[in-house]
């Protein structure tokens, strides 16, 4: 752990090769305070990540938490099962430890939620 005195954490952001973002294939380390979201901090650091509602609802910003810990105090549609499945929403996720996240996981998270009969996956991917 490298928690500093002002509760700032190092979050490693992995952008998959297959992503459509300019940063595809890159890995960035961003210092994020405990009051900041991963999305906001990344964008401030010049790492553009996909997002839409920024209220933890639409799941556009879904990512996978590889290691570390985050909390989602303000997410509108995110539950314990999502967390246990390893998904996070960068728009509302705030670090509580040095963490590594693989971003741009919307399609995967949509399928996961559809398989578990949860919106928006259940409404967008059903026949």
């Amino acid at each position, binding site marked *: 752990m490298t928690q500093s005195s002002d509760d700032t954490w190092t979050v490693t952001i992995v952008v998959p090769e297959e992503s459509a973002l300019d940063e595809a294939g890159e890995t960035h380390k961003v210092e994020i305070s405990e009051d900041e979201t991963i999305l906001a901090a990344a964008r401030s650091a010049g790492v553009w990540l996909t997002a*839409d509602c920024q209220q933890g609802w639409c799941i*556009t910003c879904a990512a996978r938490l590889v290691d570390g810990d985050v909390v989602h105090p303000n997410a509108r549609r995110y539950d314990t099962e999502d967390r246990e499945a390893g998904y996070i929403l960068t728009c509302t996720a705030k670090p509580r430890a040095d963490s590594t996240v693989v971003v741009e996981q919307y399609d995967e998270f949509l399928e996961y939620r559809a398989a578990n009969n949860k919106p*928006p996956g*259940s409404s*967008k991917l059903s026949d």
Partner: protein
Amino acid sequence: MANEKEHGSGSVEPGDTSKRVGAEVIRERGVDPEELREKLIDAIGAEFTTYYYYTNLRMHLAGEEDYKEITEDARLEDRAHFELVVPRVYELEGSLPNDIRDFADRASCPDAEVPTPMDGSGEFDTSELEVEDILEVLLEAERCAIRTWSEICDMTRGADPRTYDMAQRILNEEMDHEAWFIELLSKERDGEINPAGHFARGEPGDAPYTKNNPFNDSA
């Protein structure tokens, strides 16, 4: 005919009605029209649900007639946004979900519910409902819409001028709405003067950007 010439066709064969050049020209410019269409359905799902939820929020601004008027403008303009973009979904070979529950579930913004629990008889428990709480719900709904339509502007800029034009018109009005609710919430909650800097709409729900080309008059 002596002067017979082939039509220019691009990727669509002359006379082929199974494809739309209106969609293929977008694909040629790097935007997936199917992905865009699905995003538009999500976005107008949010406009439609907001229109519904704002009806309820407006009802509960009892006695706050000025707040009601502003909320009514936003409510009607959100419906106008839904109606502006529905034809575009069909142009891009999509359709509205048959089940309204699916439409609401895929809306790209959270439900803007009255911020109070229900009581035991199925009615709203209004005993502790505060005007400022309603205004905050309205404000955050507008902020979500701003983010959504900004994303669609980003997605279509330089590739799909028709959708971009719609999205930027809607964005103009959503930014008006945010300014209105910042002004009202600042005054109601914090006692602060924080002017929106806007004049009143001419008619309720005037939608000066999204209804100034009223092609829905024929509907």
